[in-house]
């Protein structure tokens, strides 16, 4: 543990002046000396002295998605607002990107928003000289749609939540609070996800008698073919099948207005033992999947026939999985730690056999290195230790939008110098991690239940990859047990070398003595 006096020395630069940096540092310092007081109280005290500005408008920001358009684009948008029938075509002809085109469409209905995107894509596809616009729009559209739909879902949830509250459904909600916490980001076992849908919707069928066909979901729950073929279904088929059957009922319930929807949801919640908000999310997820129902059904058919999926189908499947994962609540209720658009992008990467060669070319790396990283980062499932009270899970890494974006840009050969450096860092980390994992190291250490955190001990593949990525910083390297160093140093150095090549002279000079010696031996063996 660091001593307080050294901390003060560290921050003396901030404290010397009367500027904001000093203020922020001073705001935190007492909190660290007296850990019993919450730091936020000090922060609040600091904030209290600052001039107040206008009240934060809750709905101000999360409207739609687009970069700041140039002035001439603004002018165009006034002329060709997305509400106009031929707007998409006009905007495409004028070279306006999809994001820019949607800049002034904040008040638009969701349906019109979706229709405009479809029109834009069609117009761009039909205009060969605007091929770049089409490609850009095709990549951007899923994230734009997801962001907009998430906003709509949120508004709907807020309205129904208010109704549920009014109906004194708090007792039902409270059940979630006592449920053991679940690290949502680590739940990726798809076959666990079909069950809550099947279970809840069989209740829908009981609850609303004319929905007898929802009994089909029992098939989904039992893992046998819904088409009566009796063929065992894989988890993905069950998941998608279940949600697709749920969707019409979900849409019907949710369309009935907040009051009626809340009554239905409360009834389902009572029967299923799930909370109102949880049932609501379940219905929203099913509805979201049905929006891509045709693509998903086609994807399943292709999978069953042993055919490869298109990028669009793969992305839709990834998004469907992400929606279904959201059905799992943490101890606090429903926390969305799953980025639906990013999960779709990861799935498209998983199903893309041609990207490794392109990424390798863009980054100037050997194919086998990029192949190894892709396998580790996107394709493989990992046994991940979880948080106190949770069992380890076997799962893909949770999708991160920025990683997918870097990878995709490298594949397309349009990566900026800064992004290239970021991707090199990522590739270095993942390459080291993959090689160490192949040597039998655990990916992560479990969380220390006494500390409530996962401390850095320098023995897991992830920790050692972090050290290698940072050029074997002596402070971190000193924390690694000697036996771990002996067993893994060469593999770490080789993995770094494979991505970054030789260290520069200044970096080599700063390497810890044992690392430098091993590195020089590595160079000698490679004839350098």
């Amino acid at each position: 543990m660091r001593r307080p006096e050294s901390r003060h020395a560290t921050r003396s630069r901030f404290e010397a002046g009367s500027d904001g940096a000093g203020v922020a540092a001073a705001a935190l310092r007492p909190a660290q000396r007296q850990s019993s007081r919450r730091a936020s109280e000090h922060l609040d005290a600091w904030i209290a002295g600052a001039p107040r500005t206008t009240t934060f408008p809750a709905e101000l920001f999360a409207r739609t998605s687009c970069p700041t358009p140039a002035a001439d684009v603004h002018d165009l948008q006034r002329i060709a607002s997305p509400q106009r029938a031929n707007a998409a075509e006009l905007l495409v002809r004028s070279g306006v990107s999809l994001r820019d085109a949607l800049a002034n469409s904040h008040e638009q209905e969701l349906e019109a928003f979706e229709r405009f995107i479809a029109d834009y894509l069609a117009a761009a596809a039909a205009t060969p000289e605007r091929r770049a616009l089409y490609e850009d729009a095709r990549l951007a559209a899923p994230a734009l749609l997801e962001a907009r739909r998430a906003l709509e879902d949120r508004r709907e949830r807020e309205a129904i939540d208010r109704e549920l509250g009014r109906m004194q459904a708090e007792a039902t909600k409270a059940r979630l609070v006592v449920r053991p916490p679940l690290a949502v980001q680590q739940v990726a076992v798809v076959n666990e996800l079909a069950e809550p849908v099947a279970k809840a919707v069989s209740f829908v069928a009981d609850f609303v008698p004319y929905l007898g066909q929802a009994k089909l979901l029992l098939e989904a729950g039992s893992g046998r073919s819904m088409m009566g073929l009796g063929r065992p279904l894989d988890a993905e088929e069950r998941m998608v099948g279940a949600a697709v059957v749920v969707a019409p009922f979900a849409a019907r319930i949710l369309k009935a207005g907040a009051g009626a929807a809340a009554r239905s949801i409360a009834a389902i919640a009572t029967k299923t033992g799930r909370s109102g908000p949880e049932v609501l999310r379940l219905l929203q997820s099913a509805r979201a999947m049905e929006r891509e129902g045709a693509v998903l059904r086609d994807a399943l058919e292709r999978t069953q026939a042993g055919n490869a999926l298109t990028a669009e189908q793969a992305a839709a499947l990834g998004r469907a999985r992400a929606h279904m994962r959201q059905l799992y609540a943490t101890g606090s209720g429903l926390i969305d730690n799953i980025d639906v658009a990013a999960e779709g992008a990861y799935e498209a990467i998983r199903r893309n056999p041609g990207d490794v060669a392109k990424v390798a070319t863009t980054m100037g790396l050997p194919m086998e290195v990029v192949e190894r990283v892709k396998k580790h980062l996107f394709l493989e499932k990992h046994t991940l230790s979880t948080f106190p009270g949770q069992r380890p899970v076997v799962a893909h890494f949770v999708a991160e939008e920025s990683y997918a974006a870097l990878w995709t840009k490298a594949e397309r050969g349009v990566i900026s110098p800064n992004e290239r450096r970021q991707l090199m860092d990522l590739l270095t980390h993942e390459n080291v991690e993959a090689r160490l994992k192949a040597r039998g190291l655990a990916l992560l250490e479990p969380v220390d239940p006494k500390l409530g955190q996962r401390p850095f001990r320098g023995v897991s593949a992830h920790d050692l990859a972090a050290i290698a990525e940072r050029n074997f910083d002596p402070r971190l390297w000193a924390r690694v047990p000697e036996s771990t160093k002996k067993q893994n140093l060469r593999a770490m150095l080789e993995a770094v070398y494979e991505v970054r090549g030789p260290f520069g002279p200044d970096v080599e000079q700063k390497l810890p003595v044992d690392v430098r010696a091993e590195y020089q031996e590595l160079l000698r063996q490679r004839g350098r």
Partner: protein
Amino acid sequence: MNFTYEQRLRLMREARFDTGAVPEHGVMNPISDLLVEYYRRVARFDEPRVARIPPTPETLRCWFARHLTSEDGARIEDEVTGLCEDLRKCVYVDFITMEALFRAILLWSLLVDRKQLALEDDPSVPLLSVFAAGYSLKWVSHGLEIWGEVPWTIDPSELMRRAEVRR
């Protein structure tokens, strides 16, 4: 007492990210208190992705589109590029996460300067305090890594639970 865009920029430029000590407990400590505050504030307008430490590029694009001019965007990008260059001198930072956070903080800062965002609602304030104390952040698949003298990982959903209670 005013905490302006320029002052925030200076703080981020001068922060010693490698120096924060590991607190005794992963969940109940001043740093996680600040992160709870961050989550609480950002949840008001980034609810769907609240458990992720940086707002996503998509969310940022929303803010750009609604409130900032193209000049603002270019200015922020220039500043972010400069900050990332400075950041290269630090050993223990994750450039992907930190670049996203820098961008978000500068964006919020402009909004505060223009009185479009109340200071008490500004998510960058607790984050800047975390930076000022010598820590940087990295979103990872298994939690949230906090990097000071050494890294440690906490469960963001644990922080969110606390943030939800306070909301």
